[in-house]
């Protein structure tokens, strides 16, 4: 088990190296630069050139890359041109809102998806099944931000129950924190719920046909026990995979939804930094997001063993 984890962690190194080179190349080969953005649209070409020189943007690209990588190995992701602070600090500041939103969205998604998926599997082929799966198809098809805009019109503008947009940290109070996140969490969560519900249904349907379920039923076990204790647990590995993947996507930042709801998270940080050509922040954030995504997937792999002892046994043998 330990060597498995170690292997997975070591395999991160080439992934991160490739990601860093690709990201570095893409952003440095794209025209535009931070100096022009800082000085504004009506700045003269000479002023821009002078600031480029002063910011070290005229050094050869490979030299800039090695300089950056050297810093990364020392735990220094560089400084943001715009925020006047180290990239690590900027990422940490933007991580809070994203994590809160990701957790809340995931809870929303699971609360909607599991009951729907289970019910659809139990009522397979009936009108209930068709309706739920139709709804989930709709959930996948509607863009999150569009659903978000509908929520704003209904819950914020018409009913005035919730603020239109913005963010308050947890330190401002639990309700203050949550009330800004409810709408974006519903907008994101329903989309993710659709995916999880479909996976739950198909995995449950498959498991319900297996012999041990028939045995359990013939033993006279209560249906609730059959479904939740035997079927769900055995059907859970693919569901967990989808949950892990969707959570990974959420932590990487839901750029458009964060923009619509004005949540200063990772997604918005990436979008803004690309617009501003804040190279160091783009590089640092993408690297961090890659790392998180891979680590979440590793965690999901490890959880397989917790849920299904057969996986653990196979790995050990």
């Amino acid at each position, binding site marked *: 088990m330990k060597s498995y984890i170690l292997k997975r962690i070591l395999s991160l190194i080439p992934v991160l190296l490739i990601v860093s080179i690709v990201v570095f190349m893409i952003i440095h080969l794209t025209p535009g630069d931070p100096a022009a953005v800082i000085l504004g649209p*009506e700045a*003269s070409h*000479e002023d821009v050139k002078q600031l480029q020189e002063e910011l070290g943007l005229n050094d050869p690209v490979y030299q800039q890359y090695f300089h950056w990588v050297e810093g990364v190995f020392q735990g220094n992701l560089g400084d943001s041109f715009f925020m006047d602070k180290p990239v690590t600090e900027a990422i940490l500041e933007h991580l809070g809102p994203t994590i809160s939103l990701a957790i809340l969205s995931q809870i929303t998604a699971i609360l909607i998806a599991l009951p729907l998926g289970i019910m659809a599997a139990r009522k397979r082929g009936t009108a209930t099944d068709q309706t739920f799966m139709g709804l989930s198809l709709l959930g996948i098809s509607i863009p999150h931000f569009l659903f978000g805009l509908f929520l704003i019109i209904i819950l914020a503008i018409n009913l005035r129950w919730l603020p*239109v947009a913005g963010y308050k940290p947890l330190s401002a109070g639990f309700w203050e924190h949550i009330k800004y996140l409810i709408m974006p969490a519903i907008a994101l969560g329903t989309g993710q719920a659709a995916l999880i519900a479909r996976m739950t249904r198909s995995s449950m349907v498959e498991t319900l046909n297996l012999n041990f379920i028939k045995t359990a039923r013939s033993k006279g076990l209560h249906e609730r026990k059959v479904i939740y204790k035997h079927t769900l647990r055995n059907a859970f590995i693919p569901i967990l995979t989808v949950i892990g993947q969707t959570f990974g996507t959420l932590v990487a930042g839901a750029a458009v939804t964060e923009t619509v709801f004005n949540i200063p998270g990772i997604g918005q940080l990436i979008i803004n930094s690309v617009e501003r050509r804040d190279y160091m922040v783009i590089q640092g954030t993408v690297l961090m997001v890659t790392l998180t995504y891979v680590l979440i997937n590793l965690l999901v792999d490890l959880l397989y063993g917790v849920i299904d002892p057969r996986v653990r046994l196979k790995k050990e043998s």
Partner: protein
Amino acid sequence: MTKRFKKLSWLITCLLLLSMALIGCSSDSDKQTKSASGEAVTKKGGDLHVAIDAQPPTLDPQISTTTATKEIARHIFETLLVLNPDYEVQPMLAESYDVSEDGLTYTFKLRQGVKFHNGKEMTAEDVVASMNRWLTKSTRAANAIGKGQFEEVDKYTVQLKIEKPTIGVLDVIASTNQFAGIMPKEIIDNAPKDGITEIVGTGPFKFVEWKPDQYIKVAKYDDYKPVDAPSDGLAGKKEALVDNIIFEVVTDGSTRLGGITTGQYQIAYQIPSDNYEQISSSSDMKPILNLYGGLSFVFNKKQGPFTDEKLRQAVNTGINNKDVLIGAFGNKKFYRLDNGLMYKDQKKWYTDAGKEYYNQNDKEKAKQLLSESGYKGEEIRILTTRDYEYSYNSAVVMKEELEKIGIKVKLDVVDWATLTSKRNDPAAWDAFITGFSPVSLPTQTLPLDPNYAGWPADEKLQQFTEQIRTAASDKDAYAKWEEMQEYAWKEYVPYIKIGDYYTFHVYRNNEIKGNTYFEGMILWNTSLTK
């Protein structure tokens, strides 16, 4: 199961009914608040929430030309001189000013007892450090003032010495964009290249906190010393009537609209023009239309087909400016057909010289000029961006207009940051569309600057610029400017000003009062009424 379904559908129906009832209640309660409040009562203090559309790259007003920087920094920093709404120069941190007879020495007496937000008194050394830094940072200032230098005469007097007499020195010192904000000397001495890090000025509001991508908070400065004169635009008495202004960065237009509608913000910048009618008809909100600049089609005169003067004239003769403006802005409240390269509102410099060459829409004459030009059917590349919809939309109409007179066109659509970089490469484009905001002097007009993208390195144009700069009087300078504008429209055509355009901000008229607008929002003397 059917029973459960019935229960569920009951529950959903009840929830729907409840929501509808609440929608009804919420609008009723609004009406009650209005009728109960009656006349707006001024409330001392409180927080003013302002939704701005972009995060400024820096709050250092001396280095950046971005609107967001100007809008926030004008509440924190002050200048020696300012403009009133008629674009007349008025003293602010200077108590008085005086120009020597030979026009080479400008003396500024400073107001005494003005304190920076860090408690230190503003004296000549701070002003000299600030103004000399500004002269090196602002190309426009350097262009207008030349190799001038500020010097300290005594603790409360500074002098600007210039090499040759030039007009408009005071206007440039008072200009609002990339303005000459006065800061403490120590902060300037320690400033990194990309802008100061300590935000300390003398304005009615002091900087408190900047949460990147969230908000910038400024608070009332208790030791602020106002000018003893009635408030007028940027001039006169300033008083902070709210405790804090929170500039919230809200990049999405519909989110700003939602927030101002529900009262989450009292002011929202740059609301999408499609919503103008909706806002105008609301009793809670008022639009502020503001002149944003001149939509302009800039030719590349260094390389490519548009180096040919006749071809530029053909384009100017053939296009229907009104169609381009409708395409770009839709509602006629958002544009104005006018050929003045300085704006109608700038009474001192405005002229309509050359108006017979503006908005001609004469396709036949254009084709004639095209045949006389050296154009051989090359594809013209128009550089544009979708980051500003009006830029892209006007490029689409321009493409059609040009094709009607027989010019082949290709749109090169890139993001804004790419556009600003690409336009500095003469080989990469033939024309681009952008807006130019008002400047204090005709000689500061960017698309007439030989170093600006488009490179109008025309001898006659430069002669005019020099003649305006060194004119003996404002009257002589104005006469030369009229000639220069006529020449620009009739012959050289360095760019086509398609028309003036406006954007709009919104404020909640029953929640705040006293806010005014001059080249940006003015939020001192503004109070909350709720």
